[in-house]
């Protein structure tokens, strides 16, 4: 108890005044950023909470209060659960695949082999493209009539495998996900490449002298030192996975037959196609809550692992 009172002493008016006098300039510097954050993040978020208790259609002047109706609807909405399942598939594969591929590429280029700059540029390039461009390009790759993927498969005698990749409900989600992984890997690769520069050479040499093979050095020496980088990348991919929208919207619009519907595309349709803005606000809160919980759980687990 004594420690607590020492750590957090009660502040009197004089202390608050002194604190303000001392840090006033700092707060003033923060004010513009906070104002932007308040207008574009906090206010819309509070509005979303308010709208989730209404049946607003996006146009009428009156917003009827419907209590918890939108929240109870969530539990009976099979399309929400389908979308959530797609989000989970997206998050799991869309997090693990870029991490593994990005880390592998970073390790391969970690010693700056010949052609380092070229490879680094090529691997990172997809990241500078807008998701819409990526969606269009991959749409052409997957085109069932003139797409290079089917042409390639046909050329090597795999006609049976050829299909309309983004038009087949069994494959569409994974086809779009592959395009997203291609785009994300560049980002993960660059972050890991930077992280590898901070891995201690001394420890790697010590492990080598102790007889550790390449895999043991990688797994027991390199990876632990990348823990913070892995944390950041995983958290970003997790959040991005739950809020993914643009690449799916452009490539398939959530179809065929809802096969690529995720919560964000479903939310968009409810708001702007079905004119159910109240329910769409509720769905957006679901995305927020899931992203928040997933990030907190992940960071807590990592912290526990580190301790």
């Amino acid at each position, binding site marked *: 108890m004594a420690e607590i009172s020492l750590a957090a002493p009660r502040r009197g008016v004089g202390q608050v005044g002194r604190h303000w006098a001392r840090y006033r300039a700092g707060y003033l510097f923060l004010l513009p950023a906070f104002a932007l954050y308040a207008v574009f993040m906090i206010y819309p978020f509070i509005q979303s909470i308010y709208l989730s208790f209404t049946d607003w*259609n*996006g*146009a*009428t*002047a009156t917003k009827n209060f419907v209590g918890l109706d939108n929240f109870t609807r969530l539990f009976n909405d099979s399309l929400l659960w389908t979308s959530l399942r797609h989000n989970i598939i997206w998050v799991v594969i869309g997090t693990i695949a870029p991490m593994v591929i990005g880390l592998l590429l970073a390790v391969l280029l970690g010693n700056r082999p010949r052609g380092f700059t070229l490879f680094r540029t090529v691997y990172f390039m997809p990241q500078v493209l807008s998701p819409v461009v990526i969606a269009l390009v991959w*749409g052409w790759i*997957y*085109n*069932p*009539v003139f797409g290079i993927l089917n042409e390639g498969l046909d050329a090597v005698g795999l006609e049976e495998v050829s*299909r*309309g*990749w*983004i*038009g*087949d*409900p069994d494959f569409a989600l994974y086809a779009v996900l592959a395009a997203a992984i291609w785009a994300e890997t560049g980002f993960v690769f660059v972050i890991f490449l930077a992280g590898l520069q901070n891995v201690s050479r001394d420890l790697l040499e010590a492990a080598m002298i102790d007889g550790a093979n390449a895999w043991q050095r990688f797994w027991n020496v390199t990876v632990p030192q990348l823990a913070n980088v892995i944390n950041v990348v995983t958290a970003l991919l997790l959040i991005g996975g739950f809020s993914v929208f643009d690449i799916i919207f452009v490539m*398939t*619009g*959530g*179809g*065929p*037959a*809802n096969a690529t519907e995720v919560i964000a595309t479903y939310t968009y*349709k409810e708001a*702007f*196609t*079905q*004119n159910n803005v109240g329910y769409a606000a509720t769905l957006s809160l679901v995305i927020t809550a899931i992203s928040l919980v997933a990030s907190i759980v992940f960071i807590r687990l990592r912290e526990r692992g580190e301790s």
Partner: protein
Amino acid sequence: MRRSSRSFLSMALILLLCVAAAPQMGAAQDDEIELRIWDQFTAPSESEIVDSIYNAFTEQNPNVTITREAMDTDQMRQTVNTALASGTGPDIIFYDTGPGFAGVLADAGLILPLDDLAGQYGWAERFIPSALQGSSIGGQLYGLPLQVDLIGMYYNKTLLDQEGLQVPTTVDELAAFCGQAAEKGFEPPLAFSNNPGWQAGHQFSMASTNMVGPEAMQQLLFQHQGSWNTPEMVAAIDAYFAKLRDAGCFSEPNALNYDDGNSLFFTGQSLLHPTGSWLVGDIQENMPDYEVGMVPFPTLEGGQGSFWVSGLGSAYYISAQSQNQEAAGRFLDHLFSQESAARWVGEAGFAVPMAVDTATLEVSPLFKSILDVLASANNGQVQLGYNIDVLAPPEFNDVMTNGFQAMLAGDKTAEQQAADLQAAWEAGMPAMTGTPAA
């Protein structure tokens, strides 16, 4: 005495009001007015013509300036409700007709009923009545439609003649045609695309109209009498989305977007293209070496015939909160004057739903044939079917999109789809009176 003094007072008040209003009315004509217009003409070629037609109004009305913003339907959907409701939106919008679009704005009181302006300018005499019916909501006129679309089937006459193939007139013939065309290397024979899925609604409009006839469709769509879940509807759905699929008429339509489908037809890889008259301009531009014709979709076994399907494109609406409603009314009148209408038809290739003398216009034979069909329909010589998606509630359109995609993927039967369509219709049309559920 008292009565005469009241009359005198009334007369004096009226005179006073007239005197007071006179300078204001003059000012309304002369004051600087900015008309803000949101439309959907994003294609550069269209945009240029639209600018020119808008500018003709400002030349006649030098006190008016036009601020125009072009955006596609999706963009407009995201912003128009909020912009109009907040009073910061445009004076005039060019927006989609139908319950899920302009219907929502009308219900919310965000767009202006045009009945008074229609009376003032004589629009009712100028437009085809069915077109104004299509842009009316709850019996009130809200929009002036720019374009009537015909949905049917384009065919590449040059290649058909070259290959010795005939335009199919029945679905059975069409299925056989697909086999013959595929053997000759024209794959897919039909350039039908269905990503993201709205295209299937047009195919269903043709198949259902040919099966039950335009009158039954009118009863179902406008009077809510009948059902989507009848054996005839099931047969119509099955004929297009299962029979033609199994006959190899399409190639993975769920994976093809509309532009890709168009490209298949433009390049001569596909011989037939079931879509709408809005594509005429692109066909003329992209197929200079081919002669192209258009016919209504083939008849179905047990059906009522082969009918053109028609639907309204977008319409011009005036914001209820506009401070410039008088100028907006004049502007709409300008857009649908004989001079402007001739330009919409001749330069933009739009089938404007009003009587336009095409004799002096230079239009392609294909577009001329479409205008002739519309003129015949206006004279009552041709009966048109209805494009369903602009008349149906969003719930129904959602089932058309996802349900037909599932059928094309082989994951759903025609019976299931018909039942789902009826359920969505009942959910989205709570006021309907003639359905079995009611």
